[in-house]
């Protein structure tokens, strides 16, 4: 059997654990830089606050309904997530951390277990130990555990947030209830095409012929169909595959117009990408740079552009990646634009150990020595201690985080106070 465990209103719950007076109160969490709403408590959903709502347009809404607004506190969320995952690992060795607030669990050799009781025990222990409320769906395949999880949440007054699909009857009942667009792995485009064929529910989808599904939705679609029929085709991904692209993008606190300042930002983003790249022992072959103005501003001219620069060899050097990123910026930067956002994405990622060597061009070997020294210094003395000369020494990421909660679990100066 598989289980999908996910945290209820994860970000809001993290805040509530350390501020229990916010239980039952509407909570909204904002993206980096306090840009838009990225997480909502059930109470604020009911008030009609949409996901992704730009914060500046909703300040009177927040005041009117007394919504408690938070800047995103990733150090806290990351730590709470790790705690939840640690507790889950006590119940089975096979845990796939699917996202910050979700995990797939695989149960092999649990045939004699009452899975519902076992799931409730998991739910209870996670809540007791970490304070985090979770919903659990259990089924014979990953896709069905996801379906069961939706049932558990939707009918929580009956299920208490645990639902097990362990019979054909329950499977069909759940699939007949679930709209096809809500099925895990069915994107908007497939949903639209299926709607043309009068496929409305997950159950309708399983009634299609294998041939049609394979032809129209490739083997991925067919696998999903089998999963919904109760035949497991998608195994747990226990090893995190290295990321295919690494991005560092930021919205600016205040608009940037000067080329020098933009060069500084892009250098910093490129350096951060290089550091992330080295942290996963990879090299990259290309760097993508983009800039854009503020689309919400009517009074300034709008501009957005991006470019992909291929590099002559795979590298993980901050110096090289920054050099090419700046070359990209030079191509796309335009004067008299007020820029709101920029970013650097490194791609064409290969493991450092098995990269393709080229005959004539390669990274200066001294770069790798320098980079590993820099990484060691950062490990010991904290990040951002060594910068390129074209980066601003004094500038660290000054994110706009006006509503930031304390880092209760990762900074001893921020721990809760008790009387």
């Amino acid at each position: 059997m598989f289980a999908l465990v996910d945290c209820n209103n994860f970000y809001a719950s993290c805040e509530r654990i350390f501020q229990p007076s916010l239980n039952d109160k509407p909570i909204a969490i904002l993206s980096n830089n306090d840009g838009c709403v990225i997480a909502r408590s059930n109470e604020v959903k009911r008030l009609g606050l949409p996901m992704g709502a730009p914060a500046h347009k909703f300040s009177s809404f927040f005041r009117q309904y007394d919504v408690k607004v938070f800047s995103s506190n990733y150090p806290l969320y990351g730590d709470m997530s790790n705690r939840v995952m640690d507790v889950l690992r006590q119940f089975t060795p096979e845990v796939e951390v699917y996202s910050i607030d979700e995990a797939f669990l695989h149960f092999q050799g649990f045939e004699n277990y009452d899975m519902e009781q076992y799931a409730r025990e998991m739910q209870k222990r996670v809540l007791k130990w970490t304070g985090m409320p979770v919903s659990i769906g259990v089924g014979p395949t990953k896709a069905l555990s996801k379906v069961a999880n939706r049932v558990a949440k939707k009918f929580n007054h009956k299920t208490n947030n645990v639902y097990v699909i362990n019979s054909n009857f329950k499977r069909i009942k759940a699939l007949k209830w679930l709209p096809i667009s809500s099925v895990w792995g069915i994107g908007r485009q497939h949903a639209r095409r299926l709607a043309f064929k009068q496929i409305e529910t997950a159950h309708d989808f399983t009634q299609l012929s294998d041939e049609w599904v394979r032809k129209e939705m490739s083997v991925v679609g067919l696998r999903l169909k089998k999963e919904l029929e109760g035949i497991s085709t998608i195994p747990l991904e226990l090893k995190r595959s290295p990321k295919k692209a690494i991005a560092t993008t930021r919205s600016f606190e205040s608009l940037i117009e000067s080329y020098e300042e933009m060069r500084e930002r892009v250098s910093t983003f490129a350096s951060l990408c290089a550091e992330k790249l080295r942290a996963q022992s990879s090299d990259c072959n290309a760097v993508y740079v983009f800039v854009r103005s503020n689309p919400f501003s009517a009074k300034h001219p709008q501009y957005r552009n991006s470019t992909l620069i291929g590099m002559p060899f795979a590298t993980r050097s901050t110096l090289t990646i920054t050099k090419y990123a700046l070359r990209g910026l030079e191509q796309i930067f335009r004067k008299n634009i007020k820029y709101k956002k920029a970013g650097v994405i490194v791609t064409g990622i290969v493991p450092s150990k098995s990269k393709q060597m080229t005959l004539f061009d390669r990274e200066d070997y001294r770069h790798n020595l320098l980079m590993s020294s820099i990484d060691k210094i950062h490990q010991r003395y904290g990040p951002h201690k060594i910068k390129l000369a074209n980066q601003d020494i004094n500038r660290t990421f000054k994110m706009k985080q006006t509503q930031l909660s304390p880092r209760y679990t990762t900074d001893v100066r921020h721990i809760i106070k008790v009387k």
Partner: protein
Amino acid sequence: MKKSINLEFYSPEVNNKLNVWLSEEGVSAGFPSPANDFKELRISLDKVVVKNEAATFYARVVGQSMIDAGIDDGDLIVIDKSLEPKDGKIAVCFIDGEFTVKRLKVRKGVVWLVPENKNYKPLKISDESELIIWGIVTHVLKSF
């Protein structure tokens, strides 16, 4: 027929590992340290204090309501959320909008939050009051 030659390519590992010069045992040809076979890890306070990492949280004490239990203003307390609240345990509770640390007392099915300072009064938990027993205090760390 042409014989195929299998060539296996390797990337040279250019990262030299020689940036650490100091060898713990020195490079002399002398007698190796007799303690080497009996190496143990140095004592870690974390291991002594944290029995359940996922469930351990810390808090700073404000005020002197627990002074007779050795918990003073400014002390750091270690909280284990996984432990069951019981009569006699010191617990961090959330009541009336704030966190408080008190000793739990259960008498005839009634829960009391008992301070350890004679200037403070025990608090009876009525059915209406919303009490969250947040975690059990296992250690207190003082700085002098």
